[in-house]
């Protein structure tokens, strides 16, 4: 059965840690890191990458446009 696997790449230096993407993700993939970036923001990362389906919901609500989304079909 074909399965969809996704992944996101966050430009962590430009992320402002606003958390808007966290609630937008239907799979609960994302969280804010304990560490901060150069600007002092806890940046977004994939806490549970296995669950990502590459739906891009996180990316389209990100006010700073720092998320890129990738998707593959796995047979």
């Amino acid at each position, binding site marked *: 059965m074909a399965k969809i696997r996704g992944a996101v790449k966050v430009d962590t230096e430009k992320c402002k840690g606003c958390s808007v993407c966290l*609630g*937008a993700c239907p799979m609960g993939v994302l969280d804010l890191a304990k560490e901060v970036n150069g600007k002092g923001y806890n940046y977004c990362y994939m806490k549970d990458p296995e669950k990502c389906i590459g739906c891009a919901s996180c*990316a389209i609500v990100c006010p700073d446009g720092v998320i*890129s*989304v990738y*998707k593959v079909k796995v047979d």
Partner: protein
Amino acid sequence: MAELTINDIIKEENLVYKKTKVMTDNVMHYCPGCGHGTTHRLVAEVIEELGIQDKTIGVTPVGCSVLMYNYLDIDMQEAAHGRAPAIATAIKRVMPDKFVFTYQGDGDLAAIGTAETIHSCNRGENITIIFVNNGIYGMTGGQMAPTTLSGMKAVTCPRGRDVNTMGYPLHITELIAQLPNVRFVTRQSVHTPANVRKAKAAIRRAFENQKDGKGGLSFVEIVSNCNSNWKMTAVDANKWMEENTFKEYPLGDIKIDWEIQEGKISLRNRKLDY
């Protein structure tokens, strides 16, 4: 088969979404979670999708989004406070084949620029107005706007907006919808993925309305947040917006192709029980 690693997935050929090239790489100056950034991106994505980067002229307001020209890779003009629609009028009149839009806050569009707004709409200039209504003056530190909700606190109405002395929240969008030369009026938001999709479709329609030769002005209101001046986190602000702002400013299309949508404009009577 071996498990896919993240690095196997994050490859150029698997890319399904990334920031549009019509946006520059400059880091936006907005507060974390501010809807201005999302709205900018939607405008940029529409410009890319329609392939009109070389034909689009934007006009930025005075307000938090004054520096929008640093973020979109298109020709832009910076207007005096409230005057963007007059400037856009002239641009479109001297270069009718260009796509012209203004991007304005609620103070800019609905207070100091009311005359320019109403009259460009009334003339039916074939332009797009993107109106970001966060119910407050963001840039200057959270003063009351014409759109501030009744009872809502702002630094110039610290005890809450008193509708008896300061008037009710101004529904400029509904006012504009009633002008015969206005073609498309809609109110959207950009705080959830579903809303972003709708808002983008609306912005796209508003730009497409500039190219079919039928004319008319297209007006897209984005009800948005101002976390910093509302003194909330971005997530809380978005929730507060859903619970409060959307009641005053319900989302949806108000006018499509010169037709006011049913039930979208009703006379508002003065309510004393506020």
